[in-house]
């Protein structure tokens, strides 16, 4: 049930409860203190305009086109999306889901990524256990999310909620990866500039980060980061719809 703005404008004053004698106060109950100091009397107009402003904010939040905010989509699940929002959801869903699927298949099947030429032996797999675990967990998170979302929308059909949620989740993954890349690049730039002052070659910094023990730790941190990104993006898909929404 939603509060419509017409009710607000019809009423001249909001309902402030007052301590009248018409209430159930019996004269024997003199122990009950009469509340003479009520809340400071507000001007009817200012309270109205404050409520009207808050109402405007709520309306704006309700009809906002959400592209990478799955929690917001779940919060406002009782508001159906407009056709333009659904169009945007569809287009961005196509793009980001294809990107994610391409990255996944890239890692599984492309021999140039998976294999490495070892001298004396030929091409050998260069896949570590942590790579495989990362692929497995991200695929698990995505499939469980989609499965639960489909189950919920089948039970309680809300107009185009499923596509909105899925589009937001996939876009959220892409946006989070972009943010992570930008932060890491910013850190690297700081490192590069601090090294360049010492008149050394900056490429050794990248070599140090990709090889050696530091490289292993960085790649493990990257795997953990991508699992966390997927989990946070798809966690709103599990949340249940119900009849009251």
């Amino acid at each position: 049930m939603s509060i419509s703005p017409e009710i607000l404008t019809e009423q001249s004053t909001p309902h402030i409860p007052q301590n009248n004698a018409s209430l159930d106060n019996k004269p024997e109950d003199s122990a009950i203190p009469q509340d003479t100091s009520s809340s400071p009397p507000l001007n009817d107009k200012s309270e109205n305009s404050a409520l009207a402003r808050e109402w405007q904010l709520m309306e704006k939040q309700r009809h906002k086109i959400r592209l990478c905010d799955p929690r917001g989509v779940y919060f406002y699940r009782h508001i159906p999306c407009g056709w333009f929002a659904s169009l945007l959801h569809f287009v961005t869903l196509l793009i980001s889901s294809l990107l994610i699927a391409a990255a996944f298949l890239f890692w599984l099947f492309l021999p140039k990524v998976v294999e490495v030429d070892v001298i004396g032996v030929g091409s050998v797999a260069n896949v570590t256990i942590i790579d495989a675990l990362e692929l497995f967990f991200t695929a698990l998170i995505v499939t469980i999310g989609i499965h639960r979302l489909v189950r919920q929308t089948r039970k309680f059909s809300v107009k185009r909620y499923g596509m909105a949620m899925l589009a937001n989740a996939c876009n959220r993954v892409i946006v989070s990866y972009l943010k992570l890349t930008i932060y890491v690049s910013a850190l690297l730039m700081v490192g590069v500039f601090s090294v360049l002052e010492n008149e050394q070659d900056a490429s050794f910094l990248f070599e140090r980060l990709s090889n050696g023990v530091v490289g292993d730790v960085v790649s493990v941190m990257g795997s953990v980061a991508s699992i966390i990104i997927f989990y946070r993006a798809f966690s709103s898909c599990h949340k249940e719809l119900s009849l009251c929404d």
Partner: protein
Amino acid sequence: MRLIILSMLFCLSMVNANSALAKVDVYGDCKQQYQGMVASSFVLFSKKELMELGTCTGVALLKRNRLSTLVYSCNEAQEARSVFGIATLSKAEAIQVGQCVGVINYIYDRYDGERLDYSAYRRSNYVYSCIRGRAAVDLLSKEPKRSYGRNTVRDLLCDRH
């Protein structure tokens, strides 16, 4: 639901299948070590066999002056000492670690305590003393990245007394 998980596990096992069919062309007489390996993508149960394969191929290449990736292999050997151990070790890296360590052990076994092999004209009682283990790996990984032969590696690792 179980079908989904099973199909995903199947997908992951495709990673194994992809690499089992990969082109492998073992150098020299090392086919025996190659047969002993488990045909899987991961290093879990076959680290020893992979290192043996690396040792065999590394020594065979060194003897014919064809080991051009010795410094890379020793970089990988240094990496393998990380906190995560076998979790970040792949098959290719295990073979390379085997190559580096195998070369170092070969030089040590062949030359440590041996007299210098000068020609008969110059007699000398100098003897080689070679390093091995972690110090040798660290020393080799700092060298410039080019091709190495047996004598060059011997001169790097061994001192004359």
